[in-house]
């Protein structure tokens, strides 16, 4: 290993941000401090198998070390499959999946979220579906279904209800997507 490579693996603890663990706990990662770093979760995690640099155990470790910027600079948290293998095997009921979600919530508050999430949220707000294909009506008809599914796309009143709810959530305070106008979303595949 070259010295430059080795240097990139050194964790600089002077970068540690106090209060980071509390932030995670407040945003849903309640059981953070129960983790004993046993790595059972890592052994079960598809992100490890696929070669991501951060995954359940390492994300928790980085949080405990206060390495907020390091995690914000890495896209791994967005590759979590929400599969909950980790939650199933953790001997300490840490719920690592929820800690990763909490880390995403931290990132969202720094506007460090991927385009696919912004697009998904917009589409969810505008149509009621995070994944939406504007031209699906024809294919639906071809297989003998009504052009619109019986969802918010067929019931505008229901869409208004959903939007009213979303405006009452933290999403509205964050200003990540426009929530006043009546945007009509085109295709969105997240």
């Amino acid at each position: 290993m070259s010295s430059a490579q080795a240097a990139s693996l050194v964790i600089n603890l002077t970068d540690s941000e106090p209060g980071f663990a509390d932030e995670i706990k407040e945003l849903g990662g309640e059981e953070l401090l129960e983790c004993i770093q046993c790595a059972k979760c890592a052994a079960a995690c598809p992100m490890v198998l696929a070669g991501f640099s951060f995954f359940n155990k390492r994300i928790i470790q980085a949080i405990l070390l206060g390495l907020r910027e390091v995690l914000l600079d890495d896209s791994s948290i967005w590759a979590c499959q929400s599969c909950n293998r980790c939650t199933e095997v953790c001997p300490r009921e840490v719920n690592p999946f929820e800690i990763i979600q909490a880390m995403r919530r931290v990132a969202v508050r720094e506007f460090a979220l991927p385009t696919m999430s912004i697009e998904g949220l917009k589409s969810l707000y505008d149509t009621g579906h995070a994944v939406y294909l504007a031209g699906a009506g024809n294919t639906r008809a071809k297989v003998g279904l009504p052009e619109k599914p019986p969802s918010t796309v067929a019931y505008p009143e229901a869409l208004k209800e959903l939007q009213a709810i979303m405006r009452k959530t933290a999403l509205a305070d964050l200003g990540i997507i426009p929530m006043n106008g009546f945007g009509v979303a085109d295709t969105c595949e997240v």
Partner: protein
Amino acid sequence: MKLGFFVGCNTAFNRPDLERATRYAFPALGVELDDLEGQSCCPVWGTMPSVDLVGWCAVAARNWAIAEEKGLDIVTVCGSCYGSLAETRYKMLTHPDIKAQVNEILKEIGKEYKGTSKVRLAFNYLYYEVGPDRIREVIKHKLEGLTVAIQPGCHSLWPSKVYVDKEEDPFHPKVLKEMCEVLGATVPYYSRLLDCCGMGAMRSTNRERSFSLFQKKLVSIKEEVDPDLIVTGCSSCLIQFDTAQEFLRKDREINFEIPALHYMQVLALCLGADPEQVTGLARTNVGQVVKKILEG
């Protein structure tokens, strides 16, 4: 018997043939499906769950309230819908403070979350409530002589604490295997049976890594089972198995193709549905295996 059919996004827009199959198979087995008019996205992981815990539960709670008002349980063919709905139910029922905050938000639209309905995954519901014997009695076609590799899907198994339907051992799942055997198929084990297919957040974040994960699984299926068909329990797994093989072939990573269908599509075929309507949007070449099923 009556259930609220939670269609979700991918099934409604990407694979309406799967929606059609579901709407065919349930009534054919004596289960009526309600439309849960006005339902929305579950919401899926990369959206509200990644923004705010209470906001996630609130969007899901509106869906829940639609089913509760009709006194119905929910059924879905999508692992993500199943997971997100079951997680939010579990969170609201185990954390009264979350439930209270959600209901404060729902007041805005005159709804309330009570916690009276449950969510079931289609093949689980059929296994536990309709039963293998009844299915065996009603089917018109069989998968006789066909070998199937199963892909139950992450969310059909974990975290088992949030689900009503639990496998005896969530790391040795049996339900989907038995449900395929009921249709007459041979269903061998393969070493990567429990692996994730790589669809979803991973595919959106890093397609190469998602496909390499998928490839490991697919090659294990090919080398150890060499099946006539892959049967998934989840619509997202279906999309990965149905679309990623083509990419891997173009990249010369593999030189074969295995047809892939969702369990509800195979069941609908066995129950006598029109193959064009219930499998017509498959990208893998399912023609041959569908023909064999209809002859069986």
